[in-house]
């Protein structure tokens, strides 16, 4: 090693303890891995950390320890960054240094990296696991050195670094190649090992790996390994290390242990008595300290730091070589409010959400709760999470109202420090939080279902495409332009009629093609983003549906268009002796209605049927009987379809057709019941050949010439969603003859799509881009944006979507609404159907 380096990194502690160890005559080649501050010199930019620097620091500490035990040490690298010739020798050169200096052992020092959430110790040796290269001659065991050192060293480093676990493996096995993998092992003629002491991309560890004393303790672990293996002796002295953390303040990065979740304290002063040894910590967010070369015994250890109460502990340095004592110091600055939800000045805060105040340290919960008030005054309810987080709710917060919440200075922490409400470092002032509540509804309208469902096949050529929303849309902002129907793959726009209805507290929109659709063709209806609810909340996602038409064309013959003539041709419901279980008041009625009619049919009227079910009855049937007139003369056969458009109210009322297939009591047959679980118009069709018949008073068989008998409604007591009343509309009662299109030209049938996260567009983008995805079935979808460091930037959506094509937009801002820098970002979708990740580029 260079003389200059030795002087530069010389230790100040006494070396007498090492005289017990004798490694004289042994030669070690120590390899500080990586170098050059290049792309393969793993950099954690948030800490200005380079793996090469901590590797070299550990190696220099180790050089000093081994040299003082009498060993000869050769380093493969002496410099970092751009300094010196050998700041980054190649792997073949490092092995050549070891080979040509005739080392007894070569050891390469590294730290590991993966996903920021691992931190274990890994030891590797050349060859398959359990069967390292054979370096002993016949009669000697298979290279005992590599296995012995690896097994010993992984225990030592694991103990020194306090990592989560440890693993030892041969590189051929660990990397799964089954052949030489590590480039520094392959040309090595001397026994070799490689340590990955800990994970430098685990952020608490990154900061510890910035600390020279932390390197030194790992160097001790490696040196102790060599002493135990080569000299069969242990050090008579002991090391005492630890981490000083804030007792309450948490870090804002990933931690895999409870201790690591607390903020390390910078610039600590640790005093060890007797002896008065003093350790001064760095300002690199690790809180680490080390006293080495200690005699076994009991010590008084005092931890101090600016802004904290000092703490003293009695520490016994005993049987273990690596001893630890961690501290959690209590800040002596007044408590303050770390964060609030909502933030100050927030507008449109949902009145039903809790106000959450997070304090910097544990509070006196009783006195703090008593110190909270709000203006204008409303009753408040409090809930503590631990003693630092206070959730405040009220059933009385008004909408669109300005409030000021105050935590007055009488709120003390658990130690009695008065609140520093304005966070100026001095306690005794109030915290005030002004915000304005939002309106009653702050959620964009959502499509809860649609017809046809995604990827439906065999859809008729005259469909009512229906889109069902979870709330009422603002009709003032609703135009036909939001609804498109395109064929695929041609992409032609099909002319449609768009009709919107309010049903109860929801909206339904029907899209009806103005032309007969092409058989066996894919169609993609779309609902564009931009629809608003009555409170102005805007739907941001585009909905893409998809269905395939069938091969049947229809010839339609009207039975009754239900435009007029009710009095002459149709009985009132209660006139039929079959009607039972209905209330006799106005809740049960039949009427001509000219406000709700099927807009794709003839005329501008429909039949309204209302039923009020008598809950005291045990049977329920409303029979709306067609008694005569022209409609009664229309005959049909079982080969026909019997159809009517039914405007549903989601009352779960049962609906069916009845026909006459003969005279007398038994000449009445019915269709199966259909539950009215929809809102708006729907074509109800009875395929009298392929569907079954229902059970009523007939024999269940359709015989000969058929005539229409009645519409029938019923209440289903087994359906918990069934309403006690219903109001539906009927239109365009008709018979249909079916023809099948035999020739399928230009078939575009495709198989159902699986879940897919699409590439964003545009890409690269500035300032916004669209991220689309396709769901084959309903699923929760969470889309998150990450930067290249793996830090989450924001969550774009996290809610349930039904099947179909959806898209969301990202405007290049983070959760706080701040514009993020240009660069590569990843977007990840987590669904019930799997996880997919893509990347995109934001440019400025």
């Amino acid at each position: 090693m260079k003389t200059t380096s030795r002087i530069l990194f010389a230790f100040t502690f006494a070396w007498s303890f090492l005289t017990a160890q004798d490694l004289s005559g042994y030669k070690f080649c120590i390899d500080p891995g990586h170098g050059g501050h290049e792309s393969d010199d793993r950099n954690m930019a948030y800490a200005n950390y380079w793996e090469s620097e901590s590797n070299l620091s550990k190696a220099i500490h180790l050089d000093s320890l081994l040299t003082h035990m009498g060993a000869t040490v050769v380093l493969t690298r002496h410099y970092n960054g751009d300094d010196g010739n050998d700041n980054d020798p190649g792997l073949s050169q490092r092995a050549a240094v070891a080979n040509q200096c005739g080392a007894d052992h070569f050891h390469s020092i590294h730290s590991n990296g993966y996903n920021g959430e691992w931190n274990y110790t890994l030891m590797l040796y050349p060859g398959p696991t359990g069967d390292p290269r054979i370096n002993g001659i016949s009669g000697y065991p298979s290279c005992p050195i590599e296995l012995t050192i690896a097994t010993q060293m992984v225990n030592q480093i694991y103990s020194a670094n306090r990592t989560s676990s440890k693993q030892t493996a041969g590189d051929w096995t660990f990397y799964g190649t089954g052949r030489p993998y590590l480039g520094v092992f392959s040309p090595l003629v001397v026994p070799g090992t490689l340590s990955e002491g800990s994970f430098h991309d685990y952020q608490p560890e990154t900061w510890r790996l910035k600390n020279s004393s932390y390197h030194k303790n790992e160097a001790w672990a490696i040196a102790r390994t060599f002493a135990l293996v080569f000299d069969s002796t242990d050090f008579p002295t002991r090391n005492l290390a630890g981490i000083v953390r804030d007792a309450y303040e948490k870090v804002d990065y990933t931690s895999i242990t409870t201790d690591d979740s607390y903020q390390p304290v910078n610039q600590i002063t640790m005093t060890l008595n007797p002896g008065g040894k003093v350790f001064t910590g760095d300002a690199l967010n690790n809180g680490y300290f080390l006293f080495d070369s200690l005699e076994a015994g009991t010590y008084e250890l005092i931890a101090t730091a600016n802004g904290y109460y000092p703490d003293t502990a009695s520490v016994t340095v005993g049987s273990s070589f690596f001893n630890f004592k961690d501290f959690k110091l209590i800040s002596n600055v007044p408590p303050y409010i770390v964060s609030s939800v909502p933030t100050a000045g927030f507008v449109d805060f949902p009145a039903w959400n809790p106000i959450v105040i997070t304090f910097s340290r544990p509070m006196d919960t009783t006195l703090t709760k008593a110190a909270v008030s709000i203006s204008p005054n409303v009753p408040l309810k409090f809930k503590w999470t631990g003693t630092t987080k206070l959730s405040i709710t009220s059933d009385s917060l008004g909408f669109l109202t300005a409030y000021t919440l105050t935590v007055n200075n009488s709120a003390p922490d658990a130690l009695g420090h008065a609140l520093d409400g304005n966070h100026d470092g001095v306690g005794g002032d109030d915290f005030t939080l002004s915000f304005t509540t939002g309106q009653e509804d702050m959620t964009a309208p959502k499509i809860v279902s649609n017809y046809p469902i995604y990827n439906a096949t065999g859809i008729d050529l005259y469909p009512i495409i229906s889109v069902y929303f979870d709330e009422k849309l603002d009709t003032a902002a609703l135009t036909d332009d939001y609804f498109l129907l395109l064929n695929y793959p041609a992409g032609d726009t099909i002319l449609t009629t768009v009709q919107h209805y309010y049903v109860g507290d929801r909206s339904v929109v029907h899209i009806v093609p103005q032309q007969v659709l092409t058989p066996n063709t894919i169609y993609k209806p779309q609902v564009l983003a931009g629809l608003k609810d009555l409170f102005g909340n805007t739907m941001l996602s585009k909905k893409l549906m998809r269905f395939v038409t069938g091969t049947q064309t229809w010839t339609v013959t009207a039975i009754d268009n239900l435009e007029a003539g009710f009095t002459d041709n149709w009985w009132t419901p209660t006139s039929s002796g079959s009607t039972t279980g209905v209330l006799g008041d106005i809740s049960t009625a039949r009427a001509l209605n000219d406000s709700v009619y099927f807009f794709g049919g003839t005329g501008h009227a429909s039949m309204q049927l209302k039923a009020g079910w008598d809950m005291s009855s045990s049977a329920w049937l409303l029979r709306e009987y067609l008694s005569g007139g022209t409609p009664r003369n229309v005959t049909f056969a079982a080969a026909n379809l019997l159809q009517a458009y039914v405007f549903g109210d989601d009352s779960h009322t049962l609906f069916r057709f009845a026909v006459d297939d003969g005279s007398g009591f038994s000449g009445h047959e019915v269709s199966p019941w259909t539950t009215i679980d929809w809102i708006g118009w729907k074509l109800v069709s009875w395929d009298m050949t392929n569907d079954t018949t229902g059970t009523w008073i007939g024999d269940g068989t359709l015989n000969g010439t058929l005539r229409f008998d009645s519409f029938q409604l019923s209440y289903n007591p087994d359906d918990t969603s069934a309403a006690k009343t219903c109001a539906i509309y009927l239109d365009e009662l008709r018979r249909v003859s079916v023809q099948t299109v035999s020739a399928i030209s230009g078939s575009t049938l495709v198989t159902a799509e699986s879940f897919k996260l699409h590439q964003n567009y545009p890409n690269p983008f500035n300032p916004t881009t669209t991220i689309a995805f396709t769901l084959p079935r309903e699923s929760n979808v969470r889309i998150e944006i990450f930067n290249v460091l793996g830090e989450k930037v924001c969550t774009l959506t996290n809610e349930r979507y039904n099947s179909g094509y959806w898209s969301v937009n990202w405007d290049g801002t983070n959760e706080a609404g701040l514009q993020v820098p240009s660069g590569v970002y990843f977007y990840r979708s987590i669904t019930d159907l799997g996880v997919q990740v893509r990347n995109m580029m934001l440019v400025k």
Partner: protein
Amino acid sequence: MNKRVLTLVLIGLLLGSALGQQIDVLKTVVVADGQSQYFTSPQFSPDGTKILFSESGFKGLWLYDMNRKTTTQINDLPGAGYEPSFTKDSKQVIFRTDNYIKYKRYSSLAVQTIADKQIEYIAKDVRFMSPASVLEDQTIVYRKGDEVAAYNTSRKEALQAKAAQETYGFIEDEKIILVVDGVRNEIKPMGDNNYIWFSLSPDKTKMLFTVAGGGTFITDLAGNVQVRLGKANAPKWSPDGKWIVYMVDEDDGHTMTASDIWAAASDGALKVRLTETAADIEMYPAWSPAMDRIVFETFGGKIAYMNIEITD
């Protein structure tokens, strides 16, 4: 590199080209495919009829017969594959083998007769022994601790006087040791650095070595730089001393990511890339005595040689 040096290098490169110096690769022949065993460190015998190589970890020696196209393992001794040598008659192999006593590494120098595979030890259990260099007259010279030792393999006797006369060099703990007329000189031509892959030119007037991380150099015996070859790892003199063959290898700090074999005129006038394959990582080349072949290994265990044609 300053402008003057750069200009001289460019002129040299042009001159080399203009004078017609060139190496053409004719074809490549695989000796061992490295599928079931992973081989390393190949070299030709002085008569060019055999290729000697070892297994990953340098355990044991194998001989490939160029005429019969057969491979035979001649021993399985640990460390034997690290820089072994042939005697000049190609009938014997000199190699070092390692032993560990209390984890301390001891080396023995052995000579093995190829015909009957008999092994005789020249020196046993020596600390810090270098591989042997073979002289013209069946004599070998090697480093034995702090000494330079010589041995005649046909007469089977140590030649201490011969050792004292020989110009010999080796690496000792990051520096070059050059022994001339029995006088040991420590040389650091490029200052404090790790010196590796040292060799003397065939006429013993020049030194070839690499500075770890700092490039490869040709100097005179006083250490005055004559040629800077740049990145040229594991360099080997050609038997006539006019060429250097070497590898330009790349890694990511963990494993090898690429490597190709190059040759350079020993006056620095020309560099020729000899391999440029996507699938293989070619490393550790060595000349055939007739300079009509270059044998090499690939990272992962294949042994192959390329037929070449040199135009001087």
